[in-house]
């Protein structure tokens, strides 16, 4: 038997870190001289074929509930949300709770592990999904809730709200632009996109590789960006600089003064843009270095569950937004992403393509599509995340990171403070729903709420055209594709498919409407949509009737509240509801179908909706779907 020396006691052995050597030792020097079976390793050999595991065991999640505390202005989020209220009571400021309490509550769903997102279009006031068992859950819930407030504040307080989502953060945009320009984080990139439009670009990313970046001449900004994978924006910048230099040499060779001057100007402009990109890297590095000092102090002075150690990344993400996510492209192209030479990837950031119109992923053709297809979409992501990240800092008990951020980004700080003060004083016109948590609400609650609706809703239905006043709210159903046109031009008889009753009856395509169809009662419109268009993507539009006249829609025999505009007389103007009369819109979803089912079910149980208790048998319900009882 071969004798082994004791390596661990040899000088310098403890300093050796070699996964390859460790693997070789663990596998018993397989393939080396000598049979490992004959070596005394001092322990049982691992089973052949197993691979070394790194990274340790799966991270554990916390299950501990936040402590019960007595605070001023405790958070009020409605029945079933006590856990989330407790998080707010523990980890956000009194002012922040006051803001939360002034507005309706979105649907809140708890999930296991680190996860969180906000979906503005799911539910009347949107949906917040947030981790309930991760140590940073207070941070993530606050962040998601401030996304929800971005959505809700405007919807619940603006009487002229068009029903568009995420409108509160719009007011942050001028301050974002001001700070970004002052710091050199944002600048005019016209020369970049003009070059692509005029010349296109075609080059191999790596001379030895197979990948070619190809953007066709004539591509506008959106068309160019949607061809870019992570890193390509910067690769193109570098290629543009190289190419413009070559073009300058070519122009100089022609001795044509016009061509020479033009090529020189272009090369200088591209060079200046290149320099601005490099300069902003340095700016972010400096800010990051200062923020890291605060971060280290916060880590020492705070408890993990407070989530203060995430404020560093929250600040970094604001810089990612202010730079359109393009610093990440520089990192990808220079192969320093998530390394010690990284800039924004080691500060805080969202995924590639989150803040611009480029592709989101290097993987898979199906998931590599862009998130945003226009600049408005990209800007929405930028302002929404800036709002939510700043909200996390603003709501935090520890003010040091926010104070630092305010010094660097004073305009955003001032505007955000103004927005929060406004939120504390603005008149809220929506009902404070404080709806039960989606996971705890059951179908019985839902049907009870329908049963509890005052009967007057039904008795005051408008069934005669002469009772429709200019302020009467009416409802129209249309193909969701038409919403843009409707918001722009109002309800007209010219738009295809605004005639909801005939929608989709013509097989391929929709036919032009000659009248506008509408309901004076929300439930009737909802019932119509759920019954006749359950398989289509349709939107309900609420509008004030204004001066438009109406006649009964006799074809809708069972709907007493169905109306249509009268036949157009020769020489008279066609029916029209102007855009200013449109008070809101949203997509018809499962919540509508559920409400129709619940109402129908209640009626089917005899005597109907308003007279009998419904507490026997099964009641229609869908998991995590809340019945939509109102518009």
């Amino acid at each position, binding site marked *: 038997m071969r004798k082994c020396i004791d390596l661990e006691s040899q000088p310098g052995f403890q300093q050796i870190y070699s996964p390859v050597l460790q693997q070789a030792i663990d596998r018993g020097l397989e393939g080396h001289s000598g049979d490992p079976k004959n070596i005394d390793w001092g322990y049982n050999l691992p089973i052949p074929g197993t691979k070394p595991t790194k990274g340790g065991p799966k991270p554990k999640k916390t299950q501990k509930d936040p402590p019960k505390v007595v605070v001023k202005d405790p958070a009020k989020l409605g029945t079933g949300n006590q856990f989330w209220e407790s998080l707010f009571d523990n980890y956000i400021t009194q002012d922040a709770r006051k803001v939360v309490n002034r507005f309706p509550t979105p649907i809140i769903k708890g999930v296991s592990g680190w996860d969180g997102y906000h979906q503005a279009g799911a539910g009347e006031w949107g949906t917040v999904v947030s981790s309930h068992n991760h140590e940073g859950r207070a941070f993530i819930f606050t962040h998601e809730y401030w996304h929800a407030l971005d959505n809700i504040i405007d919807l619940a307080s603006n009487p002229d709200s068009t029903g568009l989502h995420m409108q509160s953060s719009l007011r942050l945009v001028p301050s974002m632009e001001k700070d970004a320009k002052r710091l050199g984080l944002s600048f005019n990139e016209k020369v970049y996109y003009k070059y692509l439009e005029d010349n296109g670009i075609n080059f191999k990313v790596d001379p030895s590789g197979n990948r070619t970046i190809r953007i066709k001449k004539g591509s506008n900004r959106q068309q160019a960006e949607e061809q870019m994978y992570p890193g390509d924006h910067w690769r193109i910048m570098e290629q543009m600089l190289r190419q413009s230099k070559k073009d300058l040499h070519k122009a100089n060779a022609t001795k044509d003064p016009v061509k020479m001057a033009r090529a020189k100007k272009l090369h200088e402009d591209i060079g200046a843009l290149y320099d601005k990109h490099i300069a902003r890297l340095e700016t972010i590095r400096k800010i990051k270095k200062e923020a890291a000092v605060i971060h280290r102090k916060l880590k020492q002075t705070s408890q993990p569950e407070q989530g203060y150690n995430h404020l560093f990344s929250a600040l970094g993400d604001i810089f990612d937004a202010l730079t359109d996510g393009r610093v990440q492209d520089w990192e990808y192209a220079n192969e320093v992403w998530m390394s*010690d030479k990284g800039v924004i990837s080691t500060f805080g950031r969202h995924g590639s393509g989150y803040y611009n119109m480029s592709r989101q992923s290097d993987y898979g053709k199906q998931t590599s599509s862009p998130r945003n297809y226009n600049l408005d979409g990209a800007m929405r992501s930028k302002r929404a995340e800036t709002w939510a990240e700043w909200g996390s800092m603003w709501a935090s008990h520890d003010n040091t990171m926010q104070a630092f951020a305010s010094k660097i980004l004073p305009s955003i700080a001032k505007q955000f403070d103004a927005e929060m003060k406004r939120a504390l004083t603005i008149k809220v016109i929506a009902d404070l729903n404080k709806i039960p948590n989606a996971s705890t609400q059951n179908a019985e609650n839902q049907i009870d709420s329908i049963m509890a609706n005052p009967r007057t809703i039904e008795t005051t239905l408008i069934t005669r055209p002469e009772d429709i006043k200019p302020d009467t709210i009416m409802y129209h159903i249309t193909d969701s594709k038409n919403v843009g046109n409707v918001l722009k031009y109002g309800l007209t008889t010219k738009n295809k498919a605004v005639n909801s009753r005939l929608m989709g009856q013509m097989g391929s395509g929709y036919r032009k409407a000659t009248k506008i169809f509408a309901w004076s009662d929300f439930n009737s419109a909802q019932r119509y949509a759920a019954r006749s268009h359950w398989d289509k993507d349709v939107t309900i539009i609420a509008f004030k009737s204004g001066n438009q006249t109406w006649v009964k829609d006799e074809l809708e025999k069972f709907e007493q509240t169905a109306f249509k505009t009268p036949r157009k007389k020769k020489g008279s103007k066609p029916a029209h509801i102007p855009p200013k009369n449109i008070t809101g819109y949203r997509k018809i979803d499962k919540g509508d179908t559920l409400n129709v089912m619940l109402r129908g079910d209640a009626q089917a149980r005899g005597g109907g909706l308003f007279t009998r208790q419904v507490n026997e048998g099964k009641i229609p319900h869908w998991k995590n779907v809340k019945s939509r009882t109102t518009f």
Partner: protein
Amino acid sequence: MDEELQPVFEAVARHREKFGVYPEFDGLFPKISLIDHYVYEIDKAIRMNKPLSMIEKRPSEFNKSDVFID
């Protein structure tokens, strides 16, 4: 921050060495309390011989621009 992220840097480098591409994470990144999680997920992907892309794994509704992740 960089010193805390060192294990992630190493894990990312291992991923690049194995697959030639970066691992992709969703939402706000990096989160300090998730360092163990990042390393675990990257090494799991290496063991399973499949590059890590949380963007690819996520539900399609996340690709809509009215969804704000983390």
